């Protein structure tokens, strides 16, 4: 009897095993409890399970790394996937999840896109993909012949992008180039919350790793943090420090990764933002700023496209 059960187990083992086998498209995160499923019930995939939906209704501070055991671990925030702003309290909400869903639906209709843009509001303003807006003139001028999908979402942080990548963002796509610009919003309130420079740079590195795992043949162009806010402000200091930390990671030792630094193109020699490049007083890039950005991107994107 026992023997028979053992035999059955041995026979079934190969059937069970593949489910647990390491999935090449998944990456390891530094916060082990997250990888072990002690935070989120559904670490990847789309659509969301009911258990995951229930989980997402918990307040954000309980869903952050450390929240599961009552600890405050801000150094883990930027490197552990977490969805963007979620509120299920009113009808108009789940805005962020709605955008994520719309971007994916739109991508399914345009799975032949060559270029994919990932990032925050600086990326979204190339032309909001979630609203199916056309890309702005500055982009069209340089890249009109390459079908481009814009996955930028306003207010995005590294942890939000990691979550999107794990929950279907690039599924079914085979881009030649992915342009990534993220991390700016992790810098906000860095001092007050205890989020560290190193963890933000590591969060950006994990985004690249994740993209490389999901679409292994695609080139990645990392655009380092763009200058924002006043010259001597804590935010600008944070941006400078994160960019320096990125340099230290030598991300371009991966032959498919290129890094673009726009600091000197968007600031004057004294460090002040170039007025002409910004729409209004340190808020965000204006048309001329995007012209500069696109022109600077062009050689890197061409290199990536020709290299394939």
């Amino acid at each position, binding site marked *: 009897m026992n023997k028979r059960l053992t035999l059955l187990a041995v026979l079934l083992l190969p059937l069970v095993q593949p489910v647990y086998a390491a999935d090449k498209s998944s990456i390891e995160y530094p916060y082990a409890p997250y990888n072990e499923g002690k935070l989120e019930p559904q670490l990847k995939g789309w659509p969301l399970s009911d258990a995951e939906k229930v989980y997402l209704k918990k307040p*954000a501070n309980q869903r952050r790394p450390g929240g599961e055991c009552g600890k405050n671990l801000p150094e883990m925030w930027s490197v552990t996937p977490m969805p*963007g*702003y979620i*509120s299920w*309290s*009113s009808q*108009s*909400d789940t*805005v*962020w999840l709605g955008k994520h869903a719309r971007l994916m639906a739109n991508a399914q209709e345009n799975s032949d896109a060559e270029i994919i843009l990932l990032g*925050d*509001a*600086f990326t979204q303003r190339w032309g909001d993909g979630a609203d199916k807006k056309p890309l702005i003139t500055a982009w069209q001028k340089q890249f009109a012949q390459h079908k481009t999908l814009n996955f930028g979402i*306003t*207010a*995005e942080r590294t942890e939000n992008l990691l979550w999107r990548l794990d929950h279907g963002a690039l599924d079914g796509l085979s881009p030649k180039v992915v342009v990534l610009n993220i991390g*700016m*919003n992790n*810098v*906000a*309130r860095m001092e007050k919350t205890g989020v560290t420079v190193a963890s933000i740079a590591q969060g950006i590195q994990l985004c690249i790793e994740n993209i490389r795992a999901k679409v292994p043949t695609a080139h990645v162009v990392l655009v380092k943090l763009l200058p*924002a*806010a006043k010259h001597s*402000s804590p*935010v600008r200091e944070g*941006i400078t420090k994160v960019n320096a930390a990125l340099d230290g990671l030598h991300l371009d030792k991966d032959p498919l990764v290129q890094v673009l630094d726009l600091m000197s193109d968007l600031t004057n020699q004294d460090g002040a933002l170039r007025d002409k490049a910004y*729409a*209004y*007083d340190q*808020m*965000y890039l204006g048309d001329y700023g995007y012209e500069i950005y696109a022109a600077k991107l062009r050689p890197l994107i061409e290199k990536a496209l020709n290299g394939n």
Partner: protein
Amino acid sequence: MKNKQSNFFLIAAIFLTAASAGDLLAADQPPIEYPYKPYMEGKMDPQITGWPLSEEEKAYVLKPPGERKPGMEAGGTTIAEMVPVTPAAGKWKDPNAWLNDEHGRCVQAVQDNKENIDILLVGDSITYFWSPSYKSGEKWVPKFCDAWKKRFGQYHTVNIGIKGDTTQTILWRLDHGAIDGAKPKVIVLLIGINNGPTAENFKTIGQGIKLCVANLRARCPESQIIVVKTLPKATEGVKRLGDYIDEMKLTNDPRLQVLDLWDDFVNPDGSEDNNLYIDGVLHLNDAGFEIYAERLKPLIEKAMKP
């Protein structure tokens, strides 16, 4: 010659009318001058100050707001730049709700406490949500949120924030009994988002805020005033309005402080930090109120010093 003479008579006549009108209305004039003359001349609201309202004024303010805008009294079109700087009663879907339930509630709150108000909160829904009110019998009872209680619980606070309010409705309320007889130690004013600031109209809204300050100052000469720059919504209009508040140099008044919350609520990429908003981008949640209260604290403490 003939022209000059008639000019003289005209000027004399204006002086005489102004003087007699002044004498008659002395007690019933707003404490400050508004730039839109027809309003000052009573060509719009029949009763430009005082509470309770006359039957005539009641009938007037219950008309749709669109028919009461500056310019409409002459049968013309709205003069947009006069809207934020000309007092106007608010109105909700239920015609009486703003007037009775909201303004009435606020008047009552001030009258019940006017002898000993430490902090008076003036504004729109963002201010209202410091202490949503519930009705207990005939009375409205405010319930202050933890962020407020934690830091300012020791102060006697009265909140006269009304959802949807604009610079013009604040002006109207101040002139119609909102703070009569009150001598608050500190007044916190946050207004302007419902005026819809854009890159084109931010200056007129700034002027509206300036008039609110002037009105508060005229009514409460001893009070400390804190002007909180319009928040939230990370748009160019709101940003410019904030900068314009600096340009107007309100702090020339030694008993006035300005609080700028831009960097606290706006991400470096120019988006709202929506972890701080209940509905993504407009009303603050607990975390948002925590930050707002924490930033307000040193200003209140400074204002409370004798």
